[in-house]
Structure formats: structure tokens, C-alpha cells
């Protein structure tokens, strides 16, 4: 294979700046999407564990809708189809005046999709807590929301820190799909560098390293969260 390696290209103007811009967009889209996914997913996950039938059904419907459609399809739906489905005025505003339409669509898409996965983790965490804990809370006079607020959520979320780390990582990696609707994130910038310079190996290597670096930071942060929230003696010793 004849190929002129030129790693220096990555640090030249304007390509270095493109990569920086890419990192910025990746971080912005992923972080905002994660905030949405975490809050919405928590809500939906809790709904699926409530005693009442209606919230359970709504939660289940949400999860099945958002996790069963390919993410790329959802990306296109949010960007191209959704503005046509909403009332005319809103649709016009989305197409003409909404700031950063690509990034906004990508955040909504990634956030709502990941929320369905977060919801399942939250449900699994809460359901893994013995039924007696809920009973003990109710028996002392706590109301259902208090049982969740003080007992089930604090314990359930501690249990699911490891799988939640995976979801948090996945949202960074999935954010690369946003390039299909024109968000200038890392992968898009890498492709653009390739188009301009034909140095594709260098550009995509840079993208790879950036993703690995970002996800390793996430892993390190979540490892700290896991240590900080550990319950003394819980799940370490033999059972009761």
C-alpha cells in the first residue's frame, strides 16, 4: 500500500480547529442528551414499578416504542418528519427559527431513545429490592412517593451504577450518528478532514482516540461515583 502518512496535518490550521469544534459538539450533544435521558428515563422507569396499572402501561408503551426502532431511523424522523407532524405554526418555527435545528433534533433523539434504556435499568434496580423493604416503608406510615424518594430510589440507583455507566458511554458513541443530519461532531469533522486532505487514516485515528479518551474519562468518573455511593457492608458480606 502506498500512502503518505502525515500526522502533522491534524495540528495544522484549520483542521485542528475542526477537531476541537467536533469535540465541543460531541460533548454538548451527548451531555444534554444524557440529562434528558436520565430524567425522562428515571420517570418512565419508576412509572413501570408503581402499583397502579395506568402508569405501568404508559411506561411500557414508551419503552417499547423508543427501544424497538433503530436509532438511525429515529434520527431521521426527529429531523425530517417531526416538523411536518406537529401543528403548522410549531412546524414553521422548528424549520425556520429554532436555534441549532440539527443539534436540537439530535439531542431530543438521543435523549428520548436512551431514556427507554435508562428506564429499563431503573426498573430492574427497583425490582431487585426485596418486597419487604417497600412494606417496611409503608408500614411506618410513609406514602408511596416517600417510599420511592427515601428508600427505593436511593438503593435502586446504587445497584445500577455499573449498567448506567454503560448507557452513559453509549450515548457518547451514539452521538456520532448525529452526523447524518449534519451536526458537526467529531466524526463529521474527521470525514471533512479526509475530504479536504485525503488523509483519512490520520483523521479517523484522531476520531477514535478522541472517543476513547472521552469514554475513559466517563469510566473514571463513574468509578468514583460507585465508590462514593457504596453502602458499608451491603452486598459484600453473606446475606442476612
Amino acid at each position, binding site marked *: 500500500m502506498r500512502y503518505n502518512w502525515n500526522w502533522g496535518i491534524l495540528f495544522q490550521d484549520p483542521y485542528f480547529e475542526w477537531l476541537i469544534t467536533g469535540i465541543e459538539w460531541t460533548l454538548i450533544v451527548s451531555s444534554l442528551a444524557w440529562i434528558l435521558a436520565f430524567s425522562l428515563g428515571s420517570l418512565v422507569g419508576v412509572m413501570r414499578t408503581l402499583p397502579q396499572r395506568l402508569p405501568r402501561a404508559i411506561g411500557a408503551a414508551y419503552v417499547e416504542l423508543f427501544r424497538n426502532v433503530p436509532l438511525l431511523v429515529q434520527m431521521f424522523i426527529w429531523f425530517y418528519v417531526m416538523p411536518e407532524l406537529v401543528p403548522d405554526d410549531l412546524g414553521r418555527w422548528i424549520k425556520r427559527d429554532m436555534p441549532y435545528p440539527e443539534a436540537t433534533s439530535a439531542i431530543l433523539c438521543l435523549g428520548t431513545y436512551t431514556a427507554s434504556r435508562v428506564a429499563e435499568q431503573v426498573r430492574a434496580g427497583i425490582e431487585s429490592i*426485596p418486597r419487604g423493604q417497600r412494606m417496611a416503608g*409503608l408500614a411506618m406510615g*410513609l406514602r408511596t412517593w416517600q417510599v420511592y424518594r427515601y428508600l427505593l430510589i436511593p438503593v435502586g440507583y446504587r445497584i445500577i451504577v455499573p449498567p448506567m455507566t454503560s448507557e452513559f458511554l453509549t450515548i457518547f458513541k451514539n452521538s456520532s450518528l448525529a452526523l447524518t443530519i449534519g451536526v458537526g461532531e467529531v466524526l463529521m469533522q474527521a470525514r471533512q478532514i479526509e475530504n479536504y486532505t485525503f488523509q483519512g487514516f490520520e483523521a479517523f485515528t484522531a476520531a477514535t482516540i478522541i472517543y476513547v479518551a472521552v469514554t475513559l474519562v466517563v469510566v473514571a468518573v463513574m468509578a468514583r461515583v460507585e465508590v462514593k455511593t457504596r453502602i*458499608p457492608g451491603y452486598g459484600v458480606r453473606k446475606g442476612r
Partner: protein
Amino acid sequence: MIEISNINKWFGSFHVLKNCSTQVAKGEVVVICGPSGSGKSTLIKCVNGLEPFQEGTITVNDISVGGKGTDLSKLRAHIGMVFQNFELFPHMTAMQNICLGQTKVLGRSTTEAQDRANALLQRVGLGELGYKYPAELSGGQQQRVAIARALAMDPIAMLFDEPTSALDPEMINEVLDVMQELARSGMTMMVVTHEMGFARRVADRVIFMDQGEIVEDATKDDFFTRSRSERAQLFLSKILQH
């Protein structure tokens, strides 16, 4: 104080409680015994509405447990319950376990709740262990914290659901001692247990259940000396042999 009349309960098609009726007067200690699967635990959980029932009425201090307009949370706040598996909250220290209901349900201040918790920890013999998490305590210690947690709500009655069944033998007495002291202090108690020694020493009345029915409901002396039903006699002969 607790009136149970004609309770019927089904799990699906399984008839768990059949026409159960009894009552517990203020200050009375009632022990409920019987073979496993006889519905003892289910009956006691009906008293504070943790298990719903389909027919019959239960009233506690003249408030109907199954009633439509009853604020169950408010009622439960005044009925202490102790579980077989302790059910302490694992992410809270013993102290926090005892303070939770006091601050969040009764609206006490943190200092007030902590003072009360300290006094109760002393009472159950765990004065120095308030800072420990449940997993750092032995089974007997956990159950005593659970009793303290229930007492912190100043209950009008206490329900015990097999409080010593999950304990290692050497820890059973430390829990029974606390319960005995509680009974002597005049607490109204319903106790599901297999500890017949405890029943002999502490109970005013003994209820024997089998297959969802209350077979025998007698004063302690009558129950142990002249049980009327064959089933109760058989049960007693089996568990008193050793």
C-alpha cells in the same frame, strides 16, 4: 382496640383466610401460632392493610382498615410492625433508620428524633451502635434496631411477624427479652411466632391457625393445658417434644 371480624381473603383461587374473627384489647398480648402456610403472617399483615382482603372488616381504634375513605398511611404510622427479615433500610445507619419515620411522617425535628432514637437504642441495649449500618450489625442487633424503629413512632399497638425466625439460635433470646420487656410495659401486641416458651411467659391469649382458619382462640392457660381441637394438640405435641 383491634377488631377482626369475618375476614376472607383469596390469592387468586387459593382461599388463604377463611372467616377469621378475633379481637385484641388494649394492653393485651396475643400470640398467633400454627403450621407454615396457615395464614398467620397474612392475617397480621391485613391488620395494617399491607395485604388487602376481600371480605370482612378490621378496625383499629374504630378506624376501618379496609374502608374506602381511610387514610392508610396515617393509620399505619400508629401501628408498629416488625418483620421476619428485619427490613432495615440498608443505606441508612441504625440512627437514620429510627429517625426516618419520625421526621418524614410525624414531622419531628432532627434533634428531637435523634434524642428519641438514642433513648430507644439504650432501651433495646444498643446504645453505642447508632452509627452502624445494618449490614455491620448481627441479626439479633438488626431486629432490635427494627423494634426501636417501630417504637419511635409511639405506636398504639405492635405487630410482630415471626420476628425470630430468621435469627441464629443464640440471638433469639436477646430479641425475645426486648419483646418481653415491651409486653410488661403494657404495649398491645400481636405476635406471630413459633416460640412457645415466649407464649407461655408473655402471652395473654393464644390463637392457633391451620389452613386459613382460626382453630383455637383461648387464654394462654387454656391453650397449653386443655386445647379443645385435635389439630392444636397435634401441633403442640410436635413442637413441644424437644
